[in-house]
């Protein structure tokens, strides 16, 4: 049973968010995508940009194709008069983490975190090798799908997943995504048809891979008193943590995700069951691996939004998971949900955010 004490002024909640359309190719600039979701998020929260005390963005120069690409993105914030503002070269989920930490200092009340990326502008398989060890991995052009495939094969060899189960994940996600206006890849696919396709990176087939997506997301978070003042249904951050693992995939086990387990624990996941889990499982085999790492029961709805297999706006995907989990609480009557984000080869770094609605009694310490 969680300690029962009332939410204190230390606690922080999401009070609004906005997810952009998720498309294969946008003709908008990243700054324009952000401008729209920031406007959407502050309107959703019932405030204006003026009332935002701190902003933090997650984006990546190499995805954008330009050094200092985030500098233009500042224009979307309306940073005039000048704003307290920061930027991480990480998924927007980590930008939200920085904003969450910042608000806990107690001197300001409202922050906006955002994530954006246009993956359509270049071939991800040529960009992602550059985030690997510069001597041993990058020169081999080892792309994200290859790493994912190595992990999938390890799971198959260990008997922890089957190709059929992976295809079932893909089919379920794209089917569930049909109800999600923000999804890009949707449809009813028969598992046997999927399994008849060729491998792209064995054992991964096309359906096991995420789409290439352009998109952005922004969320508004506020300290408790402000959140209650502005919002009838704040979605409370009950726990928020992230952990990393060593980089080189050959030096760690690929059949488990200890940093995900650590993050879940530190986020207070064990204190009470969640009903919904939005996981950044961009490759099908990652879902059962993460479900196991988080100790989720069969009754937990995983990626009801469709997840990254339905839309994968890199640098925003993780924050979209948080927004979708928040929607499950605010808009679809769930009480407790978790969102997960990841970075690096074979789930190197993992973040868990636990959200609660009306049942919230105070954050995990």
């Amino acid at each position, binding site marked *: 049973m969680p300690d029962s004490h009332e939410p204190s002024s230390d606690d922080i909640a999401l009070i609004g968010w906005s997810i952009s359309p998720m498309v294969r190719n946008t003709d908008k600039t990243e700054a324009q995508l952000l401008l729209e979701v920031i406007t959407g998020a502050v309107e959703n929260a019932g405030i204006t940009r003026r009332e935002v005390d701190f902003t933090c963005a997650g984006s990546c120069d190499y995805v954008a194709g330009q050094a200092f690409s985030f500098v233009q993105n500042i224009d979307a914030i309306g940073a005039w008069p000048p704003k307290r503002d920061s930027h991480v070269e990480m998924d927007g989920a980590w930008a939200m983490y920085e904003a969450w930490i910042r608000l806990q200092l107690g001197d300001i009340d409202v922050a906006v975190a955002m994530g954006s990326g246009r993956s359509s502008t270049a071939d991800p398989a040529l960009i992602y090798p550059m985030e690997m060890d510069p001597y041993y991995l990058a020169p081999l052009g*080892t792309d994200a799908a290859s790493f994912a495939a190595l992990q999938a094969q390890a799971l198959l060899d260990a008997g922890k997943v089957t190709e059929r189960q992976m295809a079932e994940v893909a089919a379920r996600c794209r089917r569930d995504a049909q109800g999600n206006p923000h999804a890009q890849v949707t449809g009813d696919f028969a598992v046997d048809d999927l399994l008849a396709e060729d491998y792209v990176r064995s054992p991964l087939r096309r359906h096991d891979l995420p789409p290439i997506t352009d998109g952005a997301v922004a969320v508004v978070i506020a300290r408790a008193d402000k959140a209650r003042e502005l919002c009838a249904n704040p979605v409370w951050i009950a726990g928020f943590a992230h952990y990393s693992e060593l980089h080189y995939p050959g030096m760690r086990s690929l059949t488990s995700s200890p940093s995900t387990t650590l993050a879940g624990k530190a986020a207070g996941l064990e204190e009470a069951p969640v009903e919904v889990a939005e996981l950044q499982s961009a490759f099908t085999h990652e879902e059962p691996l993460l479900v196991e790492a988080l100790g989720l029961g069969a009754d937990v709805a995983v990626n009801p939004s469709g997840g990254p297999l339905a839309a994968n706006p890199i640098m925003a995907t993780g924050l979209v998971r948080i927004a979708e989990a928040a929607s499950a609480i605010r808009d679809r009557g769930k009480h407790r949900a978790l969102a997960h984000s990841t970075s690096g080869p074979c789930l190197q770094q993992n973040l868990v955010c636990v959200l609660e609605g009306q049942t919230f009694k105070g954050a995990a310490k």
Partner: protein
Amino acid sequence: MSGHQSVVLRGEIRVAEAVQSTIQFPYKRSLGPVVGAFMTALTDRRIIGIRSGDRVIVPPLEWDPDTAEELAHDFVDVGPAGTVESWTWVASPTVQHPLDRPFAFALVRMDGADTALLHAVDAGSIDAMSTGMRVAPKWRAQRTGHITDLEAFVPGEEPVVPADDAGPVAEPVTMMDYNASITYTLPVTPNAARAEKANEEGRFLGLKCPVCGRTYTGGKGYCPVDAIELRSEHEVDLPQHGTITNYTIITPVQYPGQTETEPFARVHVWLDGTDVVLGYQPLLETPNADVHIGIRVSAVWASDAELADLASNAEGRLLGWMPTGEPDLTDPDLVDRIQ
């Protein structure tokens, strides 16, 4: 090519215009003492690991990957063969991959190592691959101290040495080259497209914010002060006369892609009757020593013939700005502007 295609698309927007831009650079990386030792050993057809406690870490790091403790340079030869711990068949290699025919990436646990090395396995077909199979290095004839000195692993126990093997390098390897090249296709926004079209017609297009009244150039999509979108109904034609309000003379430095060899001026031009200051504009027909604040200038556009010859860093059809011969503007309140 990479297999990342959507099966069913919703809300796809076809892009009207796009610009291709390639970022490429020959990076030169220094290896440090441990990676350097590994690469040097590769030239000698040896794969080495580094000892950490009772483990042998391959490929070797300067630190223990679990504790970060600095490791003594206690190198250990591993192999010559190893066991595949995991693998994936790459049906369509990318240009960055080590082989241009289908191959496997694999994690190979070299005999004597406690961790697995990632590399290619040139097995010929997916049917020849399996977890647990034995592989050995196939060495490149000319080795420079690079992870690809190992051309790939091949099934079997015995290393494959080419007949024309050049042998190890004479000096320890300390550096490596990394040639990154990524081509981006960046969509041109409708505002930017209209601004470019106007430029081609010898016009400047501005966008005036309906809230604050500020005017922006270059097809900017929004006002950063009010964070609102600017659209075609906000477009205004801008004058082509102005005053130099600031300047600098640049002495060019050499770098890959540099086009200049002589010092060149870049001026700030404040367009008559507007709040627009165009920054860093080329100045024509003016010796660098004569450049000063207050000069009245007007825009000079390239003829169709000249357009064909323009260097890629020019501002579309705009060649630059040229003094009109009018008396200088000297009012300090009017010329004290950068933006």
